[in-house]
């Protein structure tokens, strides 16, 4: 079992994208899924412990190594990144509109926001958080956008189903109104 765990560790470590169960099974031909799963679980528990600086996280429908949040400052210093590159609020708003309404066109996103969103779309495309997936059969055949796999990774989601739900959103709105009152 230990061997399988170290093997899975090496595989998750070497991959640039989240390693899915399917991929692990494809590589580890003949190993029962349950054994792979418990190896992964063991690894997640091991690396989550206090003595480790990097941990295996579940994201984008698979597993990936990442540094722990406490080391952010030093990591940025090493990589010479001045500050956390959060999305601008325009960028985040545009991304949310796309995430919830995809597939969408530029003008649909702009209509939802009430603001021309061409610039924000460009930024999101460059950050690879969204992608062009084709064209809409409508006058002018506008390009159609969707969120990308990087989007899931960026927000630590496993799938689009994990986007904040109607209930969570309703709760936030209630809270905001309570504060205003």
């Amino acid at each position, binding site marked *: 079992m230990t061997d399988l765990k170290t093997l899975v560790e090496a595989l998750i470590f070497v991959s640039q994208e989240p390693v899915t169960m399917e991929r692990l099974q494809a590589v580890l031909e003949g190993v029962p899924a349950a054994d792979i799963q418990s190896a992964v679980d063991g690894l997640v528990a091991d690396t989550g412990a206090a003595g480790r600086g990097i941990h295996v*996280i579940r994201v984008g429908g698979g597993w990936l190594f990442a540094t722990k949040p406490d080391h952010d400052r030093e990591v940025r210093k090493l990589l010479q990144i001045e500050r956390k590159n959060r999305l601008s609020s325009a960028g985040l708003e545009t991304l949310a*509109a796309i995430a919830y309404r995809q597939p969408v066109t530029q003008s649909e996103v702009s209509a939802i926001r009430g603001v021309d969103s061409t610039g924000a779309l460009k930024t999101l495309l460059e950050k690879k958080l969204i992608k062009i997936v084709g064209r809409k059969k409508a006058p002018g055949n506008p390009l159609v956008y969707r969120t990308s796999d990087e989007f899931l990774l960026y927000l630590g989601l496993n799938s689009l189903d994990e986007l904040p739900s109607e209930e969570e959103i309703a709760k936030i709105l209630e809270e905001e109104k309570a504060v205003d009152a």
Partner: protein
Amino acid sequence: MPENAAAIPPVEETALPPSAETPDGYQVRLDVFEGPLDLLLFLIRKKKIDIHDIPIAAITRDYLGYLERKTEINLDREAEFLFIAALLIYIKSQMLLPRETDLAEGEDPRRVLVDRLVEYERIKAACSLLREREDVQILQWKRDFIPPLHGESELEPVELSLFDLAESFFLLMKRRAAENTRTIRGRDVSVEVKMKELVGLLQERHMIDFLEYFEAHASLEEALIAFFCILELVKSRVAVAVQDELFRTIRVWLRKDARRTAAHD
């Protein structure tokens, strides 16, 4: 919107959120809001109004109050704020129309706006949740390279996407033929000239498809001036603008009584 400004009743100073207090005045203050819908939501919340039962006249007054308190016009941003202003004014006019019976739920002229606001409000709320997720994730650094293997390592992976492909070609072209880059230079168009052209067009065609008209312009600047003129005409009740369905185009035509007057101008 020069001469009509006086027609709008003065509004009480509405306090902006703290972050909006900047010495740069109106221009920067409007930037506090992501857009016109954001500003509207702010006004609605401030007055503790039920979003499904907006007193259009009062909100329109407050909203226009913000737009009037400007020191300079940045047409680029202004257009979006004015667009919603036009919508508010249109709704207000619809609500003032005398009717024999009360409107059914679905016929409420505010419906179009309410639907947009509700959707926008939801997106905004989702944003605050997504921001929390971003804040957690952004602290956890992932690698974007493949670590060294034993032996060869000539991997240089790039995921293929339509955008990557198109961007790649574009950059290639740009590199090869930088001198061929077209620059679109708009003519200098004044508001008056555009206004005349627009009124002429409305008289000739009776009705224009706004999006079509907007997109037919060579430069963004000229298109925005045209847009501004249409809002002006709507505001001064010379023209009527109607959007049949959300996100659809807007049809514009001259009011019957204005048609004759405009012709004599």
